[in-house]
C-alpha cells in the first residue's frame, strides 16, 4: 500500500538519515549490519591499488552496498555525478578513472560526511572534483551535464524516488548512463504509515 508523505514526514526521514550518517562520520564502527570499511571495499572488489592509496580514516568510513564501477565502464574525460557521495570514496575512484580531462561532482545532504570527505581527500583530489551539499531531488546542475551518474546505497533512502530519477534523467547527456548499486526489499513493507516512517532508516 502506498501513501503520501507529508512535508513533516519528509523532514523526519531526512533528519534521521542525517543523524545516522553524522554519527557514522564520527564513529564508523558497528553502525551497519553489512561489511563496511576496508572489508566492505575488498568484498565488493574495489581496486586494491585504490584502497591502498586512500587514507585509513577514509577507508574506514566506506559504507557502500555495492560497487558501481563493476557495473559498467567510465571513460577518461567523462563527466560523472556521484549522488550521495558520503565520505567521497566513489567520487575519488571516479576522479581517478576520468583523469584530468574529466570532471566529477559529488553531492550529499549530510554536512558532516562532506566535511569528512573534504578533510581526508583534500590532498588527493584534483581541481576536477567538486563536493557540495545538495539533494538528489533537486540537482544543482544544468540539463545534460553528465555522461554518467553513479550512486551507492542511496536511492533506497530518498523520500521522493520518482523525482530523484527524473532529475538524473534531466542532467544526463543523451546516451549517458545511470549506474547505481542499492539495497532491495525482500520482505513486506510495514502497513502502518507511522511504523514505516520510523523504520525508514536503520
Amino acid at each position, binding site marked *: 500500500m502506498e501513501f503520501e508523505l507529508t512535508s513533516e514526514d519528509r523532514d523526519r526521514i531526512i533528519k534521521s538519515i542525517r543523524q545516522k550518517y553524522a554519527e557514522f562520520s564520527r564513529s564508523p564502527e558497528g553502525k551497519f549490519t553489512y561489511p563496511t570499511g576496508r572489508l566492505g571495499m575488498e568484498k565488493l572488489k574495489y581496486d586494491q591499488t585504490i584502497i591502498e592509496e586512500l587514507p585509513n580514516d577514509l577507508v574506514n568510513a566506506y559504507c557502500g552496498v555495492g560497487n558501481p564501477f563493476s557495473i559498467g565502464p567510465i571513460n577518461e574525460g567523462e563527466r560523472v555525478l556521484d549522488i550521495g557521495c558520503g565520505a567521497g570514496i566513489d567520487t575519488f575512484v571516479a576522479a581517478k578513472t576520468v583523469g584530468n580531462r574529466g570532471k566529477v561532482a559529488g553531492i550529499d545532504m549530510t554536512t558532516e560526511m562532506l566535511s569528512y570527505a573534504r578533510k581526508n581527500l583534500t590532498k588527493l583530489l584534483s581541481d576536477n572534483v567538486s563536493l557540495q551539499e545538495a539533494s538528489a531531488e533537486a540537482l544543482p546542475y544544468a540539463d545534460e551535464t553528465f555522461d554518467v551518474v553513479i550512486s551507492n546505497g542511496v536511492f533506497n533512502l530518498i523520500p521522493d524516488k520518482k523525482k530523484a530519477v527524473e532529475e538524473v534523467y534531466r542532467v544526463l547527456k543523451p546516451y549517458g548512463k545511470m549506474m547505481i548499486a542499492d539495497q532491495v526489499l525482500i520482505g513486506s513493507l510495514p502497513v502502518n504509515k507511522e*511504523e514505516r516512517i520510523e523504520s525508514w532508516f536503520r
Partner: protein
Amino acid sequence: MKQVGFEYQAFVGTTDFKSSPVTTGALFLAKKKLFNEDFNVAQNIRPAAELPDLKGNGKHSGKPDDST
C-alpha cells in the same frame, strides 16, 4: 525522448524490510517511463520478490514487471 542507459546492481539487505518504497519498483518506473528501452545497456530488472538471495553482492537479470 532522450535515450540514456540504465544499469543496476542489487544487494539484498540483511534487514527484513526497508520502509521506503521498494527501490526496485522505483527503478522500474525510471526504466519504463523515463528512459528509452531500446537503448538498453542495462540488465533488466526483476521485482524484488523474484531476486535471488544475493546476500553480500551480486548482479541480477530478468524481465521487467509490466504490472509496475
